[in-house]
């Protein structure tokens, strides 16, 4: 079976991205995420996609936003210091509602920290790293099969909600080798963004949400010409400082994710049925948590594990519910 691979987590992420239909990647080398760029530099052009190594982390983030506007599925990958540098442009993608996926293979920090060792200290940066009020989606994975499927999920959510989605991996998961079974085409759902049905010559309002909060897009180069800006803007994308317009925009940016948190939240559980103690974890530390729970169960201690695969929006209800029976 050639769909079974023995790969690093970073390669599982690449396979997931390709399965999801990524066709544009811009990046800058940084440990421990570099393998993602290396593999995509070979794989993307081989299927007609584009890979570009930019001059810095900021430029990489900006380039994928530009490429998303022409209708492509886009991604970049980085680690702590690069994630910090990308924050302003991540905020731009939140504000201008541009679908994109940012993989952060976490390492030790703050600052240069320890590039070759694992860290999980970027949870709050994923949520609050860019300035101003907004919502965000951040996903995690603890094994290679999940790295694959959560990467697909990251693209699906980015395209559905027109938002940056952050995939928070970590060095241990990214560099560890493990089995990966690549699903057949069609086995996992892949989602494309909505495109507008407004015909040529009819007023297209790129930032007028539908009733369900979604915004059908028009690709740059297609019939509808519109303005994209990081300023507060009205439904045509024109800058506006009207309190009503600003209020509606900010509410929309938050509500489109908050109101759909049930559809966005993913988690896994182990031994929770009778657990007196619940370990809540994600990424590589979720592996340790499961290992510990198994060992202690052999000694009669009822320990369970709740693995959060969606970190933002934070699954508060799930945590409350799953811990209800614990001591």
């Amino acid at each position, binding site marked *: 079976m050639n769909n079974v691979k023995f790969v690093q987590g970073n390669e599982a992420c690449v396979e997931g991205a390709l399965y999801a239909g990524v066709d*544009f990647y811009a990046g800058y080398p940084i440990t421990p995420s570099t393998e993602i760029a290396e593999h995509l530099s070979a794989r993307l052009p081989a299927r007609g996609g584009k890979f570009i190594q930019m001059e810095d982390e900021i*430029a990489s983030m*900006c380039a994928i936003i530009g490429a998303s506007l022409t209708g492509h599925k886009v991604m970049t990958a980085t680690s702590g210091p690069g994630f910090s540098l990308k924050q302003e442009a991540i905020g*731009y993608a939140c504000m201008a509602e541009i679908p994109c996926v940012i993989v952060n293979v976490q390492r030790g920090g703050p600052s240069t920290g320890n590039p070759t060792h694992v860290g999980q200290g970027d949870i709050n940066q994923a949520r609050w790293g860019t300035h101003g009020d907004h919502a965000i989606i951040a996903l995690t994975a603890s094994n290679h099969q999940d790295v694959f499927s959560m990467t697909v999920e990251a693209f699906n959510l980015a395209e559905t909600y027109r938002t940056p989605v952050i995939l928070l991996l970590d060095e241990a998961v990214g560099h560890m080798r493990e089995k990966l079974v690549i699903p057949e085409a069609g086995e996992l759902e892949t989602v494309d963004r909505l495109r507008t049905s407004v015909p040529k010559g009819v007023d297209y309002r790129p930032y007028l949400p539908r009733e369900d909060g979604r915004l059908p897009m028009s690709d740059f180069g297609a019939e509808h*010409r519109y*303005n994209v800006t990081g300023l507060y803007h009205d439904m045509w994308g024109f800058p506006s400082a009207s309190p009503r317009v600003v209020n509606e925009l900010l509410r929309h940016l938050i509500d489109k994710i908050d109101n759909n948190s049930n559809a966005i939240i993913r988690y896994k559980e182990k031994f929770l049925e009778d657990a007196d103690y619940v370990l809540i974890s994600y990424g590589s530390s979720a592996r340790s948590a499961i290992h510990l729970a198994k060992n202690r169960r052999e000694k009669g201690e009822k320990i369970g594990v709740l693995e959060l695969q969606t970190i933002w929006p934070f699954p508060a209800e799930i945590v409350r519910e799953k811990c209800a029976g614990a001591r």
Partner: protein
Amino acid sequence: MAVQDLLRQRFFPHMWCPGCGHGTVLNSLLRAVLELGLSKNEIVMTSGIGCSARISGYVDFHSLHTLHGRALAFATGVKLSKPELTLLVPMGDGDALAIGGNHFIHAARRNIDITAIVMNNRIYGMTGGQFSPLSGIGVKATTAPYSTIDNNFDVVELATAAGATFVARSTTYHARECTELIKKAILHKGFSVVEILSQCPTHFGRKNREGDAGQMLENYKKITAKRGSKALEENPGLIGRGIFVEKEKPEYCQEYEKTIALAMKGAGR
């Protein structure tokens, strides 16, 4: 089609001060687009932040008003992902060469087919008149009350050294010349830079006793001369106008097509 047809009139009135040179740059740019007969749908204008950057809102092209200094990085993503589009990137002097300096030299190095227009008024206008990397020595600004001691970049020299394959300079006094240069820059296959000296009477002129907009424009006539002219030869202190670099070199997106062809043959595996 007329110039007005290239404008988004509902965006007006524009936010530039009376006497600002940026409207003249916009005029020259739109005439270049008109005379080349480009379709509005094939043009993407990407800009950064500042007075200059607001230009992208006023034009009826696909427009992307981005972050301070990053216009060329966004434009690189647009262009590489859809090379058939024409990319116009007007930038201010601080936008292009201070915060955006890295993107400027690397876009030039790649020779990606983008037309960069540096609207050089030697000042940060939108924030109220701070000196920029193009102000030069001896300039008064709100952050240089004792006058500047910072050397300036020469846009033409910098762009040339970084690898731009079309480099030109003009001023808002020479609006028709600007149109001709921008036309050539757009037609050029590769990274093109057109520097246009553009007056800021509000912040630069007032502080530096250069007079009103009319006097600043007159000054552009006095301090510049055409490349190859006798005036320039006799007065090397004058600023040269015209085309400085125009050469053929492989363009980035076309080269990437070759990479795709190689990869599809399995060469990299």
